[in-house]
């Protein structure tokens, strides 16, 4: 099963669903949290918005996560140890207010945690799918001291 996440943004992101449709020949169970993106398809199942509990179940069941470049979706995929393919929303297609999603997608794919997809060539998704089938995500924990640091601040004058 392929889980596709369009994000919570109001801007449309139909390109990622068009790309997902190209994977129908490999996997005919494609579940899409399309959010605000309007789309009709007989190849994928569109679920509008899903509660986070239900979404967590889909993450567990999915073989591959195909997501916009939002950190919530990407990190949930990594945490579930799934191959994550990320397609950044781009400003020039009015998918976001800027191109910041390319930053995190570039960085995390450089570090080997996810696969970055070239969204300008839609068929690149097929290459990414093939990569994902044998992808071994980087297992190193990402540096994180921020919770301790903030706890220390918050507990300082209690």
């Amino acid at each position, binding site marked *: 099963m392929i889980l596709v996440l369009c994000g919570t943004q109001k801007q449309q992101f139909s390109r990622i669903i068009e790309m997902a449709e190209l994977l129908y020949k490999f996997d005919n169970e494609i579940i899409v949290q399309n959010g605000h993106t309007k789309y009709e398809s007989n190849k994928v199942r569109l679920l*509008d918005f899903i509660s986070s509990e239900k979404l967590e179940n889909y993450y567990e069941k999915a073989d591959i996560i195909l997501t916009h470049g939002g950190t*919530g*979706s990407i990190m949930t995929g990594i945490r579930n140890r799934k191959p994550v393919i990320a397609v950044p929303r781009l400003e020039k297609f009015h998918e976001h207010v800027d191109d910041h999603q390319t930053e995190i997608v570039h960085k995390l794919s450089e570090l080997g945690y996810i696969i970055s997809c070239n969204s300008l060539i839609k068929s690149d998704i097929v290459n990414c799918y093939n990569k994902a089938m044998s992808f071994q995500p980087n297992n190193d924990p*990402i540096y994180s001291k921020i919770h301790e640091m903030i706890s220390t601040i*918050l507990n300082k004058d209690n």
Partner: protein
Amino acid sequence: MYKTKYLFTSSAGGHYAQLKSLINKINVDDYLVLTERTKIKQKSSNKIKFLLYGSTDEFHYILKLIYNFIKSLIIFIKYRPRYIISTGVHSTIPIIIIGKIFGSKIIYIESYAKVYTGTRTGKFIYKYKLYDYFFVQWKELLAVYPKAIYGGSIY
């Protein structure tokens, strides 16, 4: 003087995911969450308050900003948080400004999504020193915010 210890605030989406991750991992009670309402069903709770969801490219954004400012002011007066912790972005600016004026301690955490450049909100908060502690999640961002603290990933 303070009625609530901690107010955690963020926009929707990834910012809210980062806020939840922070709250889950640090051990605090007596807190309030202020975020944007989206169509995702949320368990109702008296610990969570909602602002209007807004995107800065919307025509009506300025009206939403005014609404959110007034709502933030009402919430501030009612709860008087000692600390305001924000994971960004724009919809949290009103409560940060109000908090800064009335003496709350502000902790601003730049989004995990930003590796090389800051958010407009982050730059605004930094430039006008609307923070007491400014965290970045990527080392690369110290070039943009030299006085920030590098804390690593919030996830």
